[in-house]
């Protein structure tokens, strides 16, 4: 800067709404004088440590603030001060340059995708061992208690079928040298769940009467189902799912900022879709666990396919329909995909 610059604008004293049409005069040494345009009286003067420039935002004038709270705003909203800080100028240049906008447009979705699909699950897996066992016990106990109160009824299976299921359960635990103490099998009748089985984080595994009846002629298929549920417990899927959902919710919340009412709804459904995607990944993991352990027990992976086929047949028509839309709304992978995976091994 070799010469003094003059900038037209308006001036306001600290905390005062009175406006003065004014000229700011900035000397090469950075001395600032602000004069009233009407009568040329001096309104303010300051040396560099006592004034600062505001942020440069596209389409807006950059204000000049004095330490005491007075403000000078150039009339020309495109005017940029020569002594503007580099960082402030850089942010504006990035925001208004075509190249950086296009780059951001391409990179943002890719990075976001990577964070959700790779980074989040990785961090969640790393966080899971930090959750103490007592918490998992507590989680399992509480869920089990509320399920028992609401949707589970005592089993009505004949004694020999119960014994058959328990025999396979015991065999799986023994041969896979899993801790007996941790795992507990329960049989329940449940109209709510129908033919189903589920696992809780503390090692509680529940299989319904309906599922046992469905598979009563295929004991290996029951074994496959039990192994799948053990896979959920071994993989600590409940806790991981919570950690991943929390991470995803935080990322969406922070990155997208204030979702005003409507966007709120949208982000809400986005989070549900994402959680379902996480859930499908974990089902696949448990499937793989079951298939691998079947082999280790000297059984055919076909047993898993049999279990899935039987479920598919029992659920009937609605289970057979898997349009692209429904696929993303589901918490489980497509059943036929799961069968194919088992038979491919």
């Amino acid at each position, binding site marked *: 800067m070799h010469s003094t610059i003059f900038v037209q604008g*308006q001036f*306001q004293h*600290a*905390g*005062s*709404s*009175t*406006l003065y*049409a004014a000229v700011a005069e900035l000397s090469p040494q950075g001395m600032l004088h602000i004069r009233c345009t009407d009568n040329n009286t001096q309104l303010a003067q300051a040396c560099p440590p006592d004034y*600062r420039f505001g*942020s440069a*935002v*596209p*389409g*807006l*004038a950059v*204000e000049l603030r*004095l*330490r005491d*709270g*007075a403000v000078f705003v150039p009339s020309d909203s495109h005017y940029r001060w020569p002594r503007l800080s580099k960082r402030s100028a850089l*942010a504006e240049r*990035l*925001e*208004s*340059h075509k190249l*950086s*906008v296009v*780059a*951001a*447009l391409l*990179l*943002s979705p890719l*990075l976001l995708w990577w964070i959700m699909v790779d980074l989040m699950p990785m961090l969640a897996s790393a966080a899971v061992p930090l959750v103490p066992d007592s*918490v998992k016990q*507590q*989680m399992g106990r*509480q869920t089990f208690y*509320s399920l028992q109160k609401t949707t589970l009824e005592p089993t009505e299976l004949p004694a020999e079928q119960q014994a058959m299921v328990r025999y396979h359960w015991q065999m799986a635990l023994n041969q896979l040298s899993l801790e007996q103490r941790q795992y507990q099998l329960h049989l329940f009748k449940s109209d709510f769940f129908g033919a189903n089985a589920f696992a809780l984080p503390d090692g509680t595994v529940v299989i319904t009467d309906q599922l046992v009846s469905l598979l009563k002629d295929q004991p290996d298929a029951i074994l496959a189902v039990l192994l799948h549920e053990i896979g959920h417990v071994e993989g600590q899927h409940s806790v991981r799912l*919570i950690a991943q*959902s*929390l991470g995803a919710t*935080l990322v969406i*919340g*922070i*990155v997208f*900022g*204030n979702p*005003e*009412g*409507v*966007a709120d*709804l*949208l982000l809400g459904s986005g989070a549900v879709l994402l959680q379902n995607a996480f859930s499908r990944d974990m089902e696949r993991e448990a499937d793989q666990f079951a298939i691998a352990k079947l082999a280790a027990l000297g059984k055919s992976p076909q047993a898993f396919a049999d279990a899935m086929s039987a479920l598919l047949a029992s659920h009937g*028509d*609605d289970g*057979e*329909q898997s*349009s692209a*839309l429904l696929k993303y709304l589901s918490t489980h992978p497509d059943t036929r995909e799961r069968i194919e995976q088992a038979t491919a091994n």
Partner: protein
Amino acid sequence: MENNQQTMAQPRVDKVAFSGKAGEFFGIWIVNLLLSIVTLGIYSAWAKVRTNQYFYGHTRIDNQPFRYLANPIQILKGRIIAVIIFALFFALSSLSPQAALLLALPFMLLSPWLIVQSMKFNLRMTSYRNVRFAFHGEYLGALKYFVLLPVLAVFTLYLAMPWALKKMDQYLVSNISFGGKTLQINTDTSSYYIAALVAFASIMGLAIVIGIAVAIIGFIGAVMVGDGIDSTAGRGAIAALISVVMFALYFVGFALSGAIYQCMIRNHLFERTELPGVAKFKSEMQVIPYAWLILSNLLAIIVTVGLAYPWTKIRKAAYLAGVTTVAVYPAIDSLVDEVQQDSNAFGEEAAGLFDVDVSLA
């Protein structure tokens, strides 16, 4: 300036002007989005400040813009606190529903403090003509209006809810001051009841439409199946169709009832609020255009997988500015900020730990 030539006590009446441009804001948004992602969320505080600066700076009353004064570090601090609270609450409620229930009470007692804190912070960071806004509400008031009244309203089967909402708005507005003058508000309970009733009636009307639509689809489905089209495929397609239609109607209902309530309440609120001797307000929102704005914004966001977000935000701001008129009295030219007492306007001195807006957004 030309203001001096105005005759005394004659207001300058004009619409609020909004000059933000969708293309310009798109660049700001997407670049800030990338920077926020790359910095694992840290830059999002800067992004918020720049976004607010953009919207405040492009909103003008009487040809003077608003200014957003917050420092990104304050925003960052508030966000870190919010993330910790949120993560703890989320983790606890997922791990143990009972613990979450126990936590609900302290959280309910904490929330009025958060509301007051947020109002104070955001208004203090808003400046117009170099004068800051201020919020004078205190914890007990917020506890009364935001916790006690709504809880009591539940016991009246929500019949007292519109009245509680009126009280909340009154509490918020009457505690806002600008240049030493406090906003005066004089809203009617009946207007809140009418707004709530009309919004509710619109939802009921829509529910009837949904019922008819589902019946028709079901009928068509039955006919199709009867025609011998592959029955499973037919039923599956109909189930999918019904869920899509329900989803769409849910959005329409949400947009419509929300638009009705917001239009009626905003119009009434602006009509009955004034800054004595300084400004009067008028809002002329209309239900159909606003409902269409909300709905088409939502559609645009869905269709563009979020990329239309900047455009929708600009569009909404432009609409709200366009339906708002402010009458400014000459007293505006000589207001003095009574809030600004600190000698250093750069805010370099360490702000208190809780001089922040504890908010994720």
